């Protein structure tokens, strides 16, 4: 079975701006895959390329082995997408909107009606079935987008920021529902700003920045890449921070509290305690804080930004010796708002 999504060197350019830069990504069938990235990272552009709302400039994109342009009908038939923006037909009651959408996928009229009722019940807005979209609350609108994505019984469900701006209850309802769908075999591609969401739901995540793939890993692998902090409470306030071994990346003393940044807090802690006791420090308490995925995300995207800035500056300086080869100026987020 081909991957649910496979892109090779995918490029999208808007004039001078490169929204997707040689993006190669594979999402396996049945996977719950997260796309993380700041605004303008190219997440929505990537999704829209798959569903036919954006025409790629170069590279390849396939859905279950179907090319998104040459075999667009098969590729689109496999996808259900709940976009970030509300794009629902305002002319009809929502039940009919769902019937129409199912019909566009070739579902017979009577079955389309049954499916519409079923998904409206599933997302909890069946009692609003005869209302028009504009009369729904914000949370209900979000639920409807999910219902519309589900009414075609897709093999690949794409959720673009599904919980942006929704209340806690709805967020948890949505999490529960998409987890169920994934367990039933639906491949899910989720884009989100909420790191907790990706950490909680996704088998793997890709971090994107400025149209590039920064990394792909499981949430645990990503967290393993970060550093932990061991906070040690001391019985008395020492004059200065102790000199520790190379395992301590950074040592900070604040009153009687010593913070040591290490790679793996759990295994380093006994060694740290021994070292401190050997130097005469009396220990009152100890706490290990794991790096959050959010911190790793920020670290990775900032590192990517620095790398891009450096390479840009270097190439600019190639023809002009007077140019500096590195700059501390934060890179301009040219893609803001494009995705």
């Amino acid at each position: 079975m081909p991957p649910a999504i496979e892109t090779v060197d995918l490029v999208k350019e808007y004039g001078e701006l490169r929204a997707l830069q040689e993006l190669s990504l594979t999402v396996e069938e049945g996977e719950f895959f997260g796309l993380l990235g700041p605004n303008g990272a190219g997440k929505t552009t990537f999704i829209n390329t798959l569903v036919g709302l954006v025409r790629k400039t170069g590279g390849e994109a396939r859905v279950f082995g179907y090319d998104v342009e040459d075999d667009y009908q098969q590729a689109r038939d496999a996808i259900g997408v709940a976009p970030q923006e509300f794009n629902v037909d305002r002319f009809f009651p929502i039940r009919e909107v769902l019937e129409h959408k199912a019909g566009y996928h070739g579902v017979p009229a009577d079955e389309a009606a049954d499916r519409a009722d079923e998904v409206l019940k599933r997302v909890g807005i069946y009692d609003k079935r005869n209302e028009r979209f504009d009369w729904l609350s914000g949370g209900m609108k979000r639920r409807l987008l999910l219902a519309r994505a589900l009414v075609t019984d897709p093999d690949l469900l794409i959720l673009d920021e599904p919980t942006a701006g929704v209340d806690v209850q709805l967020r948890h309802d949505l999490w529960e529902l998409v987890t169920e769908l994934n367990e039933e075999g639906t491949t899910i591609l989720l884009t989100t700003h909420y790191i907790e969401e990706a950490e909680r739901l996704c088998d793997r995540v890709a971090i994107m920045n400025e149209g590039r793939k920064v990394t792909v890993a499981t949430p645990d692998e990503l967290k393993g890449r970060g550093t932990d902090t061991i906070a040690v409470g001391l019985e008395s306030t020492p004059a200065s921070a102790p000199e520790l071994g190379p395992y301590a990346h950074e040592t900070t003393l604040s009153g009687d509290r010593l913070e040591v940044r290490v790679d793996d807090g759990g295994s380093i802690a006994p060694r740290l305690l021994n070292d401190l006791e050997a130097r005469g420090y009396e220990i009152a308490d100890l706490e290990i804080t794991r790096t959050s995925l959010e911190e790793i995300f920020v670290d990775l995207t900032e590192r990517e930004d620095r790398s891009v800035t450096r390479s840009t500056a270097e190439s600019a300086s190639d023809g002009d010796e007077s140019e500096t080869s590195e700059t501390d100026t934060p890179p301009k987020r040219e893609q803001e708002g494009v995705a």
Partner: protein
Amino acid sequence: MSVASRQLQSLIRREVLRFVRRPYNTFLPPLITNVLYFSVFGVILGSRIGTISDVTYIQFVLPGLVVLGAISNAFENASFSIFHGRWNEYIHEVITSPLSHSYTVAGYVLASALRGFIIGGLIIGVGFLFTSIPFAHPLYLVSFGVVTTTLFAGLGVIGGLFAEDFDHLTVMNQFLLRPLVFFGGVFYSLDQLDGLAYTASLLNPMVYMVNGVRYGMLGMSEINPNTSLVVLTAATVVVLFINLLLFKRGVGITD
């Protein structure tokens, strides 16, 4: 029924229900407008004008008014539906579906042509209240009705895809369509024009439509109806081909 047929049927159903459920916006205005036209141009002015080529003035203007109503509505339906869908982005429901490009064009064009055809029929119905209609060549009448509404539905698709604002739709309808219709021999006979104006009129596609429908309804035409039918059919094929090309390239829809 095949999957593709069900897809097409769903799009046509959606498009037809959209205008059928809003009769105050779609059916009533042309009915009222044409009652006014018939009252003023037909009854009040017509009685002073007398006959043109042996038909009363009200009979003479009736085919032109039918064409005016039919093509305006066919054009407006397609252009508005597509543009409104683009404006509110719900056209994505269609675009992200597995409908083929040709069936997408067919869905919008057929539904819009149907609206034009229905409006044309309603205007004929209003005409019956004011005068008699011989329906000299009903097959020609239907053929011209089908071709002209399809042509303008196709033009409406182009308008809907290229428009960037609601104003653009108004401009197309009011400043392009209406002048062409009014100078297309609706209210006067081409025989009344001198050489240059007559020749210029022959460049106006409305002349062929009005004359074709007039031939079907009254049996009189200033231009050979078969020539008109061929010219209009060729224009329709070209416009539909352009529609297909625009959807394939995603003009106005994809980034």
